[in-house]
Structures are given as structure tokens and as C-alpha cells.
């Protein structure tokens, strides 16, 4: 007969030393996070809040919303906003389409080759924007190597050259960063595309272009939009390379901010208002893109 009188269900009670170990562990983990929290506070939250507050006062310290009114009324700022939006859209599209194309080709390679080429290809992203700008000036500047060679071959006058210092040139230099970035995100998206989806579509009567139109593109779209968000955010803030290339000759929001924060046009509250507007525009665009991507991804899950 089993003894039924003695055995009772004992509640698992944590012993005092177990509790202490647990809290000690928790405390240690919080401590590990501390440098990050301090860093975030000092270099991100504080400057942002400070900038936001200071943008609401004029240079003599009186409260005003004039700085914001200026952003939307002064022609130079309105042009800057328009240019920044156009430039970021163009550069993102070039990077997005170029990167998608390269990724589509890369995933067809055998895995060893693919990984090697993709890491090689990612190298530009580690380079400083100044270095890249200088490299392009040497290659494609008014008297750059490539311009000289082409002029020599076709016996063209020195007035003919590829203009690195206009919008198409600037977009092209940024493509040097943007295409590899997009390639890396899209390579993962392509690898996750189930090849039997394509076979199923053909089996059901779809010709190759219809497979792309009705299956491949819609399935890839959420990943593409996510990649485009990264592209667009980066390009709204693009600054170093464009400054090195054209100085203040082009009117971009980022360059306006730089000029009001350091140059002769020094006006920190105005720079603050421009920055807040830049952040707001970028955040809105990202929210729209991620909303679209989430809607599509929910179906694709």
C-alpha cells in the first residue's frame, strides 16, 4: 500500500539565497545596459530636446515660432526641402532598383561565390564619404581620368565632360553606397523566395512575364519597401560626400543646416528648426513606407 498520509504537494518556495542570486543577476544586467542608456541620453535625447527648445527662441532669447515660419516661407528653405525630397527619392530609386537587380543576379551564383562577391561588394559602405568623393573627382572630375580618356579617344574639345557636380553626378556617387546596401537586403529577400511558387504559377498557365507580374513582384514587394526605407532615410540626411563634391553650390536641407550651424550665416535656432523639420519629413516617409510594407507583409507571412 502506498503511504498516502505523509506526502503533500509542496509549493516550490524560492530559498533566500536563490532570490538573492536572481536579483543580483538582474542588477548586473541592468548595469550592463547602463553605458548604453547614458550614451543615448547624452548624445541623442539631450541634444534633440535641447535643439527642439532652442529652435523656439530667437537669437536674443525671446520665444518665437518665426524659425518654423521661415522654413516654410523663405524661398531658399522651400527649395532646399523640395531638392532634398527629390534628391533622396532619386538616389533611393537608383539604389533600390540597381541593388535589386544586382541581388537578383547574385542569388543565382553558387553559394560560395555569392558570399564572397557580396562581402567584396559591401566594401564601399565602409569607406568615408570624403574618400569616395575624392575618388570620383579624380576619375570623373572636369579633368578626371575617365573624362580625359574619353575626350582623347573621340577627339572632343575640353568643354565636353561628364559633369560630376550636377544632380545626376551627385546621385551617381551616392549610388556607390546605396546599391550595395540595397543588394544586401534584397539578396536575403530573394533567397527566401520559394522557387515552387514560380513553378506553381507556370503550372497554372502563367507565362514568364505573368509570373513576374502576378507572383514574384508582389511577393518581393514588402522586402523591397523595407530596403527603400533604409535608402530614403540615409539620403535625406546625405551630407558629407555632397559637401565635398559641390560645397554649398547645391541647396539641400542638410547643407542649409550645416551652413546655419557653422558658416557666416550662423543662426543656431534656425538650424534647429530646419533639423526638426528634416526629422519630421523623414519620419513621416518612413512611417508611410513601413505601413505599406507591414500591410503587404501580413499577407506574405
Amino acid at each position, binding site marked *: 500500500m502506498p503511504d498516502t498520509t505523509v506526502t503533500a504537494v509542496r509549493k516550490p518556495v524560492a530559498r533566500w539565497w536563490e532570490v538573492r542570486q536572481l536579483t543580483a543577476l538582474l542588477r548586473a544586467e541592468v548595469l550592463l545596459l547602463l553605458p548604453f542608456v547614458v550614451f543615448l541620453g547624452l548624445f541623442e535625447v539631450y541634444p534633440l530636446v535641447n535643439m527642439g527648445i532652442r529652435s523656439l527662441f530667437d537669437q536674443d532669447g525671446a520665444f518665437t515660432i518665426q524659425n518654423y515660419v521661415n522654413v516654410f516661407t523663405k524661398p531658399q528653405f522651400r527649395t532646399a526641402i523640395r531638392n532634398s525630397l527629390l534628391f533622396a527619392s532619386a538616389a533611393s530609386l537608383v539604389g533600390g532598383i540597381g541593388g535589386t537587380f544586382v541581388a537578383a543576379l547574385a542569388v543565382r551564383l553558387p553559394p560560395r561565390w555569392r558570399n564572397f562577391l557580396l562581402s567584396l561588394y559591401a566594401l564601399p559602405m565602409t569607406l568615408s564619404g570624403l574618400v569616395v568623393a575624392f575618388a570620383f573627382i579624380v576619375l570623373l572630375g572636369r579633368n578626371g581620368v575617365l573624362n580625359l580618356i574619353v575626350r582623347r579617344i573621340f577627339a572632343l574639345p575640353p568643354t565636353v565632360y561628364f559633369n560630376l557636380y550636377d544632380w545626376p553626378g551627385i546621385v551617381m556617387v551616392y549610388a556607390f553606397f546605396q546599391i550595395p546596401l540595397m543588394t544586401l537586403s534584397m539578396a536575403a529577400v530573394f533567397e527566401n523566395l520559394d522557387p*515552387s511558387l514560380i*513553378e506553381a504559377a507556370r503550372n497554372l498557365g502563367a507565362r514568364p512575364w505573368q509570373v513576374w507580374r502576378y507572383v514574384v513582384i508582389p*511577393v518581393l514587394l514588402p522586402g523591397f519597401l523595407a530596403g527603400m526605407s533604409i535608402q530614403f532615410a540615409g539620403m535625406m540626411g546625405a551630407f558629407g560626400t555632397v559637401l565635398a563634391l559641390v560645397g554649398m553650390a547645391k541647396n539641400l536641407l542638410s547643407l542649409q543646416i550645416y551652413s546655419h550651424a557653422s558658416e557666416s550665416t550662423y543662426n543656431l535656432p534656425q538650424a534647429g528648426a530646419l533639423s526638426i523639420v528634416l526629422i519630421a519629413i523623414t519620419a513621416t516617409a518612413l512611417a508611410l513606407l513601413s505601413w505599406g510594407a507591414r500591410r503587404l507583409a501580413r499577407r506574405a507571412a
Partner: protein
Amino acid sequence: MARVEVEGLTKRFGRVVAVQDFSLKVEEGELVSLLGPSGCGKTTVLRCIAGFERPDAGRIIVDGQVLNDVPPERRNIGMVFQTYALFPHMTVAENIAFSLMIRGRPREERERVVKEMLELVHLEGMEDRYPHQLSGGQRQRVALARALAMRPKVLLLDEPLSALDAKIREELRGEIRRIQKTLGITTLYVTHDQEEALALSDRVVVMNMGIIEQVGTPAEIYNAPRTSFVARFVGTMNLLQGRFESDGHFVWKGTMFRIRPHPEIRGSREVYLALRPERLKVASLPEQIPPDHNRIPGRVEWVTFLGPIGRLTVRSNEELLQVDLPSDEAVRFPIGSLIWIHFHPESAHLVPKEP
């Protein structure tokens, strides 16, 4: 409905021969399974018929028309994939109507077909769900409905149940058979699950290493395997390697067995004797054995409880034999007991030994 003929199909991938000289005729409305271990070439045969692979030799013929040069989208052959391959951005209704949408059929027709198909696979009311909102079994039903929506001449199923749980698998297996019978559609079914192949098929093609080992009805495959591979692959089988003597007896390790003759085995030669575990009987004393039965003495090594039956693993002549008994009978032979296995000559089947 259509007749499918495959003539001398050969397919290589680099230096690997995936399928070699494969020939098969599937009659109208027949369900034929291609059964074999992974890498045996069964899926390659299916993909050649669907048009996803190009044969290196041989012809694919449906209803007298050679399809080798017809692209997959013009073959009108339905296919169901192991991974379902439902379009994730489309609803159930859009998935099912895909083939009709591609062909530019009017909306009323698409809606009618979707409704019909959902009734056929018992998923009424699921039109607006997305694939990720369905269970695995439901997804495969949608995939089946999608493949059938365009009224294909032939239906190909590539391991459609492998990704599902055992219970759903069995249920859906019956559904597939029912639907196939209802529509009378010529069907090729690829599986590595011998039980599935036996349960579903009119005929089974057993494949190994790119070649056909045997073609036959499930009963033929199960009761009269032609090769030792088929005997081992389909169901559980005891294979005794011994000698067929010209006087018609089989000799295994000095013991002589009376057996049923085999049309292809004559003269004295090495053969296998195939014994199904459920065809063997067990007695504790030799006096209990009917006089016309063959007998093998042994010792119970292990007993496995399998629900309705108990499986004895018996050591005899340094080999292990499996014997299936009704559970209540199996408990009478505990581990270690000395027993006699006996069987009627008709219960054994000779299998030629490959050189």
C-alpha cells in the same frame, strides 16, 4: 481525362543519372503512385511530366500528343507541391482562380469555379482567408483545389502529405482518393511512404536509384515483391537468404522448407525467402504445430507493443525474425521464452537474389 505515356525517359544532372530508361503507361482515370526512397528519381519523373525538367532521352505523351517541347504553362497538367506553394499575397479565392484569371475568364465563371472547388475540398466559406490563416491540411486542400480549378487533363501530386501531421495525413489521403475518384482524373502520386502508396493507388511503381524495381497493384507489391529491394522497402519483411534446390525445397542454414514454386526460379540457386511477420505463427511446443507447416526454433529477444498487435523479435540461427501476433496472444511469450515459429508453405514467397 487522359492517358499518360512515358517512354524510355532518362534524365541526368551533371554526371548523376537521376532517372534511367523509365517507361510507364497510366490509363484514363487511374491513380498510379511512384514510390521509393529519397533520391530514387520519382520526383524527377513527375517534374519531367510537368515540364519543369527537360528529359535527356525519351518521350512524354499525353493523349497521343508528345509534350517534350511544350512549355509547362501550355501543358494543362495540374500539380500539387509538398510545400503547398500557395501565393501568400492572394486570398484562398484568388489562389484557386489564378489559372482562370491568367486565361482572362469572366468574373462570374471564376466565382462559380471557386465555389465548386471549395465544396469539393470541404472548405466552404474560406474564400477571403489568406494562406497564413490556414492550417497545413487546409492549405494543401486549397492547393489541390487550385490545381483542379482549370480542369487539367492530368493531376500530379509531389509528396503532398509529407509536411503534415500523421492524423491529418491519413484524413487527407482519403480525401484525395475520394476527389480523384469523383472527377475520374488521371493521377500520378509521388511518395516515399509505402503505406500511403498502398492505401491510395490503383497501381504502384516502386523505384530505386533511377530505375523501376516493380510495377503492380498494391496487393501484388505487398504479397509478391519481385526484388529484395521491394521486399525490404514495402512493409516489414523477414528475408531469409538461402538456397533453392532443384527438387523444389528451400534450405536455410541446414533446415529444409516446403514452399510454393516461383515461375522465374528454376534449378539450384541462391534466393531469398520472404516472410511477412503477420503470416508467421508461434507455438511453445512442436506438437502444437500443424503437420504441413514449416518450423523454425528460436528465443524471444524483445516484445514491442503496437496497439492491436504485439511484435516479437525472435533470435534464430543468429538472425533476428519479426513475428506479429494479436496483442493478447503476444503476452503469452515473454522475453527469453523458447518458442517455435511456424508457417504454411503458401505464406512464404521466393524472391530472386540479384547477382
